[in-house]
């Protein structure tokens, strides 16, 4: 059946289109995304994306929970880089409370956040490789995600949904083993990353498959609300870490890589370069904490930071604080705050309205990939079906974050 609403490209042989349902459980969609594609032969004429297949009502849950219990929810937003989300939420709460953190805590946070950025980009770039036919690179570089996991385990005890850190600092100090593992990561990962890039960056097949695919101009990208590496690949140097420095990012020297065409190849390169920059930031942070007292891992804010367990059993004051914090009865002044961090795939914003109660009156997450995924039909218009798959994986869409 030919569809009167669809105009076919010039020179089209067949004068009718086919409807193709891609997803929501198609393996190439890397998540639960459904697209109803209108195909003219191999070419995509139009796409209608459907989302919401793992909508979990984070915002409603957050209205029932004390502030510190929202951190585990943020884990499950962008689960490829949960530490950034955790830190984002802690930073938001701290800004709401007006807490100042010691420098060492901020540097440690930067280390963890940049590790998370690397491990997120590992998945995204690895998967772009898989979708263009290079499974080897993915298997190879996934090994280094395991190393990053081991570091998180050393710091907080869990691998993926980390719930790392607390309001006011970390739950415990970094052990020597953690620093050793970070050193090991810094030593071994650059070699692997170099090899991974050698495998793909100048690879003829990879270039042919990604260059010019899913391109977007800077103007359209801004209009579509792109942020993060996808926006930078289009040539806009907007990075929350620099534009609105949070934590201690103002103390570090790093470059923001930008692309020119905004296609899949540029997105791949931008992510690759960001990993190198993150490695350099981690190195700088490690150097900086050398001069700082090694036993500081949280701010001295007894009203908001859980006291030591031995104090809870022996000191009245500590017991009261412990009780108040655990029951979520800490005092939070009414206020309204929008705080953003640079998530691995864009600007992750927390819009919180406090009415002075134990839980936020309203909490809204600005999820970057929810906002930029709506450009997908425009990105793949006129592209081949196989290009549509590459384009989707290079956008770094995380279903859990997108559907909130």
């Amino acid at each position: 059946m030919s569809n009167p609403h669809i105009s076919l490209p010039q020179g089209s042989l067949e004068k009718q289109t086919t409807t193709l349902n891609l997803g929501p459980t198609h393996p190439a969609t890397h998540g639960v995304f459904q697209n109803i594609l209108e195909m003219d032969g191999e070419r995509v004429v139009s796409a209608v994306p459907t989302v919401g297949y793992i909508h979990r009502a984070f915002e409603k849950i957050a209205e029932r929970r004390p502030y510190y219990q929202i951190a585990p929810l943020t884990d499950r937003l962008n689960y490829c880089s949960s530490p950034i989300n955790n830190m984002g939420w802690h930073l938001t709460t701290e800004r709401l409370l007006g807490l100042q953190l010691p420098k060492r805590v901020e540097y440690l946070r930067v280390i963890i956040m940049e590790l998370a950025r690397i491990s997120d980009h590992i998945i995204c770039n690895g998967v772009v490789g898989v979708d263009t036919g290079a499974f080897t690179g993915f298997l190879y570089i996934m090994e280094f995600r395991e190393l990053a996991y081991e570091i998180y385990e050393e710091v907080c005890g869990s691998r993926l949904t980390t719930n790392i850190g607390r309001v006011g600092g970390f739950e415990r100090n970094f052990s020597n083993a953690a620093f050793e593992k970070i050193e090991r990561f810094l030593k071994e990962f650059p070699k692997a990353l170099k090899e991974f890039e050698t495998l793909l960056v100048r690879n003829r097949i990879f270039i042919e498959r990604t260059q010019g695919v899913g391109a977007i101009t800077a103007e359209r990208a801004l209009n579509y609300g792109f942020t993060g590496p996808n926006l930078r690949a289009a040539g806009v140097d907007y990075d929350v870490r620099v534009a609105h420095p949070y934590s201690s990012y103002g103390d570090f020297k790093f470059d923001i890589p930008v692309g020119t065409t905004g296609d899949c190849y540029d997105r791949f390169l931008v992510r690759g370069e960001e990993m190198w920059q993150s490695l350099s930031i981690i190195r700088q942070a490690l150097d900086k904490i050398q001069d700082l007292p090694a036993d500081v891992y949280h701010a001295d804010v007894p009203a908001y930071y859980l006291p030591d367990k031995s104090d809870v059993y022996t000191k009245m004051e500590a017991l009261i604080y412990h009780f108040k914090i655990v029951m979520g009865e800490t005092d939070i002044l009414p206020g309204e705050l929008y705080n953003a961090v640079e998530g691995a795939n864009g600007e992750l914003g927390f819009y919180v309205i406090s009415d002075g109660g134990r839980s936020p009156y309203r909490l809204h997450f600005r999820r970057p990939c929810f906002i930029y995924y709506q450009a997908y039909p425009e990105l793949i218009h006129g592209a081949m079906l196989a290009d549509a798959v590459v384009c989707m994986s290079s956008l770094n869409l995380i279903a859990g974050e997108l559907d909130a």
Partner: protein
Amino acid sequence: MTNEQIQSRLIEKFGEALTNFEESYGMLSFHAPKELNLKVLQFLYDDETLQFRFLTDITAVHYPDQVGAELAVVYHLQNLTTRTRLRFKIFTSVASPQVFTATRLYASANWMERETYDFFGIDFVGHPNLIRILNVDEMDYFPLRKEFPLEDQTRVDKDDDMFGR
């Protein structure tokens, strides 16, 4: 560009229409009448000194106690050259939640407004495709309004008086 400059420029243009100017955590915020939401957005976009051309976010808040202005639609904007953020709100009653859509100005507003509709039932007049986005189409209420329960109502095994339900 300071928040005072933005405020005076806005008052110059809209006069008394914009109210409740305040600065919290360094961000300027104000209230606008709901008929003017597009005019304000367009002015902020076009004005040569303001240039708020990046729509960060659209969401809504439900205040059941404010009769006649139960729903607030919140816009977050950013000027990417001076890196200034701005927030403004419009209020609408829950009985007639009609608000003009920003999709003509920002392509990104499309899904943000669909999400806001899905959660709060705000009817964005002129939206090209205002249907539910995250929830199932059959849903007959707007779950983030305060009167609706969070929990899944089909569950019977959680009835602990102290902790569960």
